[in-house]
């Protein structure tokens, strides 16, 4: 017979304000099976935990129900408490009377009634709990970083620095990501390339780091500590280990119509190309869609001029498989597509550009050699208008409902740089709010306004259209409450940023949860911001949410620390709530095997003694190290031979019964 203790937490007033915690404890005291019941202000506090420990000892409790906040919050805490008192940690059940009760109900009577039902359901379950012993699994001491931008590079460097092997998979031909495209960084205005490229070189030269550029993650199997990842190495048509990066091929290539991706398509490049001068690896790649040799089997000039004999027109995609203990997602972001924002005439007017395009135009290595010109005619502009929140904070459904966070600051940077370099250019900024939280951020913005006389206009732009050589911006000055029709030479759109489109696919492969905006969900928004709820998956950079470079670098380091914490373990404690096959009931039909996503179920011919009848039967056997405890098999099994420890059929039905009572 179970001896259950019930512990009702007030959570200060969080629970106690809408749930009569004393009554809950009192009612539970009279439930069959309950030998002790009490309430306390903060069960999770040391004093609260002491009450639990003492009660376990004093009343010889065999199981406990804690009525408190969500088990996602403190289940682990109370399991440890139980364990310290000598009780199996899986003899603990949580009744969530905060998130799912006190916080959503106002009426105290109603809240109390519901809390009692939830407590009864937890009691019904715990009565059927059985002590579970966690197993162990090994840890492959190697990490994978998906994405080779600043986030990925930083995470990889930090992991490698601690002495662990780490691989970076980058889908572009070079690492460097978005930061490599930036001209200057706020609020210090130091040169982006100057601070990034040394890190890129570090990454390339670190013997613990392996770079797989121009590569994509194809398939992920396994689980924390034991991921098996298939990586597609896309055909470069250039032997990576042979190419010296001399660039002779680029000089000779007659196909010059490819859009230069690095410059966001603002200019053209050859079919064989090195993305930019400081690319890592400094190796050419052939754009098969542009290459005359590959398309028409003519030309072959690059092969002729390549002294290193690095060209291989017949190269195929290659696949490699690697084992990893941990995976860092650093898949980054992109500016959103503007096809739903026709009012800005972005598609029609070359002089309407995005901020990222402006970065390239301002950059000495960019399409204009760093000279600020109108893309339509190469003329020097005299008036530039910035439009903020293009697609950010958008509730019309066309854009993103969130704030992209970095736009206010980079626009201030752009405005300041332009005014600094071209004092003759007037700069206007249409904004909804200027958001400058961050060290030295507001000071930076004020400098733009005060020192550089940038014209900030609070208001939204309704329309941008071309008129002769110029552009006309129609907007509202909300402070002056007047319509503005403003003639300008260039318009720069502070385009919202969104997670890279590959993020969703990769998250699916990793079984990491993703939110409606395709940002990867963190295990806890405050307390576990760099971990995914899926064990062994960590988040670095903008894939988790919009952030600037220092935040990205900080998070990348934090993710690396979490990875290191994992890799430094020799064994992991596995979740004991795994499936279990009852050999006496198993029909051997293999249906469970069909639905198991982990290949955790195998079949064996076993000699079974079924109440005196001995025969060899084909029965399911669960590999507990592989099973992740989803329970798909349990529902597929018609005889109920498959059951899930910790969430058994009987336990769940007991909860159902208690609720429907």
């Amino acid at each position, binding site marked *: 017979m179970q001896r259950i203790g019930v512990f009702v937490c007030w959570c200060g007033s969080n629970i106690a304000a809408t749930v009569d915690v004393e009554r809950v404890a009192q009612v539970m005291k*009279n*439930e*069959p099976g309950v030998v002790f019941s009490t309430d306390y202000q903060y069960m999770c506090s040391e004093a609260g935990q002491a009450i639990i420990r003492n009660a376990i000892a004093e009343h010889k409790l065999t199981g406990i129900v804690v009525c408190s906040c969500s088990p996602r919050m403190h289940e682990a805490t109370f399991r440890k408490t139980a364990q310290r008192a000598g009780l199996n940690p899986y003899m603990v059940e949580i009744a969530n009377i905060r998130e799912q009760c006190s916080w959503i109900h106002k009426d105290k009577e109603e809240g109390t009634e519901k809390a009692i039902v939830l407590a009864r359901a937890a009691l019904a379950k715990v009565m059927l709990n059985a002590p579970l012993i966690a197993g162990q699994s090994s840890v492959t001491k190697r990490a994978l970083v998906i994405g080779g931008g600043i986030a990925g590079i930083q995470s990889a460097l930090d992991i490698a620095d601690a002495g662990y092997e780490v691989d970076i998979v980058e889908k572009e031909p070079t690492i460097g990501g978005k930061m490599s495209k930036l001209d200057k960084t706020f609020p210090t205005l130091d040169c982006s390339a100057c601070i990034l490229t040394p890190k890129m070189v570090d990454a390339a030269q670190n013997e613990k780091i392996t770079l797989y550029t121009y590569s994509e993650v194809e398939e992920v199997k396994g689980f924390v500590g034991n991921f098996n990842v298939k990586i597609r190495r896309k055909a470069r048509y250039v032997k990576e280990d042979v190419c010296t990066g001399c660039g002779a091929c680029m000089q000779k290539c007659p196909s010059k119509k490819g859009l230069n991706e690095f410059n966001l398509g603002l200019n053209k490049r050859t079919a064989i190309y090195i993305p930019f001068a400081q690319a890592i690896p400094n190796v050419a790649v052939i754009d098969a869609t542009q290459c005359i040799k590959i398309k028409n089997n003519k030309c072959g000039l690059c092969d002729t001029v390549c002294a290193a004999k690095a060209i291989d027109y017949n190269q195929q995609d290659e696949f490699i498989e690697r084992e990893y203990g941990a995976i860092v997602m650093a898949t980054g972001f992109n500016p959103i597509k503007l096809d739903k924002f026709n009012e800005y005439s972005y598609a029609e007017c070359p002089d309407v550009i995005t901020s990222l395009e402006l970065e390239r135009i301002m950059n000495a290595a960019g399409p204009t050699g760093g000279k600020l010109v109108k893309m339509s005619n190469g003329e020097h502009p005299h008036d530039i208008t910035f439009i903020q929140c293009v697609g950010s904070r958008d509730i019309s459904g066309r854009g993103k409902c969130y704030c992209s966070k970095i736009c206010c600051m980079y626009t201030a940077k752009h405005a300041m740089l332009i005014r600094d370099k071209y004092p003759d250019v007037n700069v206007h900024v249409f904004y909804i709010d200027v958001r400058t939280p961050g060290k030295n951020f507001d000071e930076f913005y004020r400098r733009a306004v005060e020192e550089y006389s940038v014209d900030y206009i609070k208001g939204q732009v309704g329309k941008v259209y071309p008129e002769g050589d110029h552009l006309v911006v129609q907007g509202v000055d909300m402070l002056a409450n007047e319509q503005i029709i403003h003639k300008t030479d260039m318009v720069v759109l502070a385009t919202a940023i969104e997670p890279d489109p590959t993020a969703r696919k990769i998250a699916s492969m990793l079984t990491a949860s993703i939110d409606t905006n395709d940002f990867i969900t963190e295990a806890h928004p405050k307390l576990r911001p760099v971990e995914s709820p899926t064990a062994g998956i960590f988040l670095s950079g903008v894939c988790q949410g919009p952030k600037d470079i220092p935040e990205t670098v900080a998070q990348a380091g934090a993710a690396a620390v979490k990875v290191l914490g994992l890799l430094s373990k020799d064994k992991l404690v596995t979740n004991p709530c795994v499936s279990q096959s009852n050999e006496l009931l198993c029909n051997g039909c293999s249906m469970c095997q069909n639905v198991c996503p982990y290949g955790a179920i195998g079949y064996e011919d076993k000699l079974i003694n079924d*109440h*005196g*009848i001995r025969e060899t039967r084909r029965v399911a056997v669960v590999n507990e190290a592989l099973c992740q405890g989803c329970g798909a098999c349990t529902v597929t099994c018609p005889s109920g031979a498959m059951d899930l420890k910790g969430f058994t059929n009987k336990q769940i039905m007991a909860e159902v*019964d208690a609720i*429907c*009572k």
Partner: protein
Amino acid sequence: MKKLAVKDLNKFFDAISADQLLYMPLEKGGSVNYGIYSRGDKYDPTVLHTVKSVKDVFFPQCESMASFVTAGKKFEVAPIAPVDQSFTVFGVRACDVRGMEALDKVFLSDPVDSYYAARRAHGTVISVACSAPEETCFCTAFGIDPTNPGADIQAVIAGEDILFSANTEKGIALLDKVADLLSDTDDSAADDAKASIKEILNKLPLADIDLSAWGEGKTEELFDRPEWDELCKSCLGCGTCTYVCPTCQCYDIRDYKVGDKTTRYRCWDSCMYSDFTMAAHGTNRPDKKQRFRQRFMHKLVYFPDRYGMFSCVGCGRCVAKCPVSMNIVKVIKAMGGKNNG
């Protein structure tokens, strides 16, 4: 002897059911079973057998016996009292009447089953002679006369009339109650009807089935006979034969817990089921042969040993209803007997 026009049967039913429940064979969803008569329901005399026998009235397939209510840690038992109202059952065939005798042996002997006993005490049974026996019938092999079915009142349909005669005080009292509807008549019409039924009975293919291999004291002779191995093979292990049988009396007692209330009920069980009489050690009769043998040995050997009568009444329900046509007739014949070819 009392007479009533068959077409006036509903008046008879209405009169009886005015102050008590009247059970009779009623069609529902295409099958005929005993149900509670309500005004306008039709009795179909051409239906020989109900699917479930009259056993379902006196020993219902499922009946609650007690409930336990917990309030906090307190616990209260509330027994459910046996029936205390009179009721009537109409349309019982001779085989089912004999079936009730077999049930009486079990349930009315010490310790008396109070639920069954109460129903027997409060129930008045009106039997009806079989006018068109079927080829599956072999009640005569057990000495049953389907033209004289017995019970409190027995009836026979003769042409346009149904003729009643009371056999017991309960029967007399009931006929008195509806005396207005009935007229007196002599036995001649009934005798004629019975005679023509008997002609059919003589033609029935199973009428002369030989039971000499069975009966009291045959356990040792029959228990290990090799025929059981083959006989049991086609058996599916379902409970159809036991549930349609008028004499199978095994039941299980189970608890049904909802919230604070537990209802203890009993329901028919079948010795053909793999979980029948499952005890704590987990082994009852572990294989099909043992379960199969048990049912027939019980009907034809153990029951005679104990009560001096067969507990098969030859109604033929199992013969007609077995999904794989493996039935008591085959078993009887398989073990020999001179007429059984």
